[in-house]
């Protein structure tokens, strides 16, 4: 499993850097709709992968960890809200997680600051999520403590 994910990462990191997605100007020109290359790259990646994955799911493809699961998720508000914040950061930095890593590996000091921000944002979101779950957890614990008495009273 770890070997497979390392190799997939190796290929993906190689391709991102080979296409110069770790260059601010490439992403900036894409987002200014000056050149279609990155859009075409994404579209061709999806165009190749989507039919193969759909076929594999239809055929109940067996992997080394059970039947293939494409993890399709229904739309929820967090997908859109989070993506809007992500998009704002992407526009300013002209870089996203894998390109920022590729930038840094290539020697970009400023790429390392993007990466530091990324990690901080992930940690911050996890902290917010953990905090917002606290009242729910407390309520759950309280209700499970009360339950036996309530059941007894009814009985």
């Amino acid at each position, binding site marked *: *499993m*770890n070997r497979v*994910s390392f190799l*997939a*990462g190796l*290929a993906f*990191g*190689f*391709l991102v850097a080979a*296409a*110069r997605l770790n*260059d601010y*100007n490439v992403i900036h020109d894409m*987002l*200014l709709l000056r050149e279609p*290359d990155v859009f*075409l*790259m994404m*579209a*061709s*990646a999806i165009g*190749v*992968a*989507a039919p*193969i*994955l759909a076929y*594999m799911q239809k055929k109940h493809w067996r992997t080394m*960890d*059970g039947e*293939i*699961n*494409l993890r*399709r*998720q*229904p*739309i929820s508000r967090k*997908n*859109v809200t*989070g*993506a809007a*914040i*992500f*998009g704002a*950061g992407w*526009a*300013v*930095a002209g870089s*996203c*997680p*894998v390109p920022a890593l590729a930038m840094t590996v*290539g*020697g*970009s000091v400023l790429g390392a*600051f993007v990466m*530091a*921000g*990324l*990690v901080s*944002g*992930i940690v911050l979101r996890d902290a917010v999520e953990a905090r917002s779950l606290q009242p729910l957890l407390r309520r759950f614990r309280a209700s499970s403590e009360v339950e036996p008495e309530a059941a007894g009273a009814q009985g």
Partner: protein
Amino acid sequence: MDILPDRVPWYIVGPLMGLTVVALFAIANRPLGATTAYRESFRAATLRRVNEAWRVWLFVGMAAGALLVSLLRGGPSLTLSYGLLGTLVPVGLLIPILFGAGLAMGFGARWSGGCTSGHGIRGMSALSPASIAATMTFMAVAVSLTFLLHIVTGGSL
């Protein structure tokens, strides 16, 4: 000596990216994505419990792949340049701006459940409704904000 072309064209990179997503699903039944790989790698680096070790290996692989390209292009070199943005904004101001942009990306991607690779390539390839909505949103916001910055800076950016 530079072995790789300056920029490998989209019609080679795109399909190969698609096949990478397929391979990780087909062999290991795992979704390719960078945000959770960052998270798990940070946990590993700070000696905290790692929930999914394969994501750390994915992250290490991504770094190794990018390093390989850098080596094929003459090797990594320390630089403070940052494209057009770096020519317009002094480094002292650029550092907090880029950190803030990274923070927004990390926060937003974690909230949204993916980034350009997790939603934009992997999730879209899986035809996941959540990823389609997220990709349309971050594309629309990023394009709009980039145009706004372009206008505000009088076309400099």
